[in-house]
């Protein structure tokens, strides 16, 4: 187990969304545009990084019976920080992510990494794990958001990428499009895995 291996496993091998299928609620809800996906990804990465550090630091003194409530309090504190900072400096993004900022608390990826990794490994490894998983999550969000934004609005990161004659399929950025896009992307990944 090396630092770089922990850092990179989140991108493809243990990708939290496409392979582990965790944290689907924010994934489907915020990927209407690439900007929202990036915002959500970085917010979750920050919370994951901080909570992994703290959980790893207190692993020796946490009684195992009440460890889950302890982790939840740690995570909820950092979510509150993100919520307030984002509300103050990025009010537009804060508004479009809305309910899903406080709901980072119940994102299974973060609690899952605290339980499965940070509570058993040292701080340095936990940092690598958090960055890798967080960026893997962000990357997946951006991939899904890219498909949905280009199909549904004809833009990428707000810039027009399709010819003017392209009539955007509004369905892709509505709720049904979220499920269908993720379904097809997962099938595509399964197909690539089988080919190997």
């Amino acid at each position, binding site marked *: 187990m090396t630092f770089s291996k922990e850092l990179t496993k989140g991108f493809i091998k243990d990708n939290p969304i496409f392979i582990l299928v965790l944290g689907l609620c924010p994934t489907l809800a915020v990927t209407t545009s690439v900007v929202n996906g990036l915002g959500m990804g970085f917010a979750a990465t920050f919370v994951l990084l901080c909570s992994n550090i703290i959980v790893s630091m207190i692993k020796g003194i946490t009684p195992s019976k009440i460890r889950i409530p302890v982790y939840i309090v740690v995570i909820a504190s950092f979510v509150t920080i993100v919520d307030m900072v984002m509300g103050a400096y990025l009010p537009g993004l804060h508004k479009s992510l809305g309910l899903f900022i406080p709901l980072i*608390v119940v994102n*299974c990826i973060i609690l899952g990494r605290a339980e499965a990794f940070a509570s058993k490994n040292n701080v340095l490894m936990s940092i690598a794990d958090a960055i890798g998983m967080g960026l893997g999550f962000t990357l997946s969000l951006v991939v899904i958001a890219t498909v949905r934004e280009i199909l549904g609005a004809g833009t990428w990161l707000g810039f027009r990428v399709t010819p003017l004659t392209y009539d955007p399929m509004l369905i892709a950025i509505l709720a*049904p499009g979220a499920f269908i896009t993720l379904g097809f992307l997962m*099938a595509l990944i399964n197909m690539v895995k089988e080919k190997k």
Partner: protein
Amino acid sequence: MGYIGEIFVMAMTAIFIQNFVLARFLGLCPYLGVSKKLDSAMGMGMAVIFVMTLASAITFLINKYLLMPNELMYLQTIAFILTIASLVQFVEMVIQKNAPALYKSLGVFLPLITTNCAVLGVAILNTGALRSDGVTAYNFLDSVLNGFFSGVGFTVVLLAMAGLRMRMEMVELPRSMKGMPIALILAGIMALAFYGFMGFKI
């Protein structure tokens, strides 16, 4: 419109128009995870209705009488998630002791509910802080009813999904579409059907 009418509108909104799973994207993990069999979907649905109703009541009281008078609104997320976690634990203990039969059917689903974002979601939506549809904060009875109806909405689509997935077992599918991908596409088609309800003005 009388109060009964208002309750009817709230029920229709929570179950069909703004369905928690298909329109708001809340509670997707159990929706995709526990929808393989009809009876476990039923158990999960009942547990969610129960916890969401109770959690709506308790978080309302905490918000109104503990957080708001002391200007501690920034602690909302922490206070709510702790309340829900301890509530679920408490309910589990009470049911285990007093209703072993019920515990047998609901027991396994209760711990999963703590991290079901629908429960925290309904608690936060009830406070009115993040509602986009312009509805101001609910009073106590409204909150409890909204929690109940949202839970019912969750259960309705969970059961429908379980029924569909049981039939899909018999269908010949390309290997890469099996499992999660086809479940997501089914959910998408179901969301499309529910999208039709959005046109209703009641």
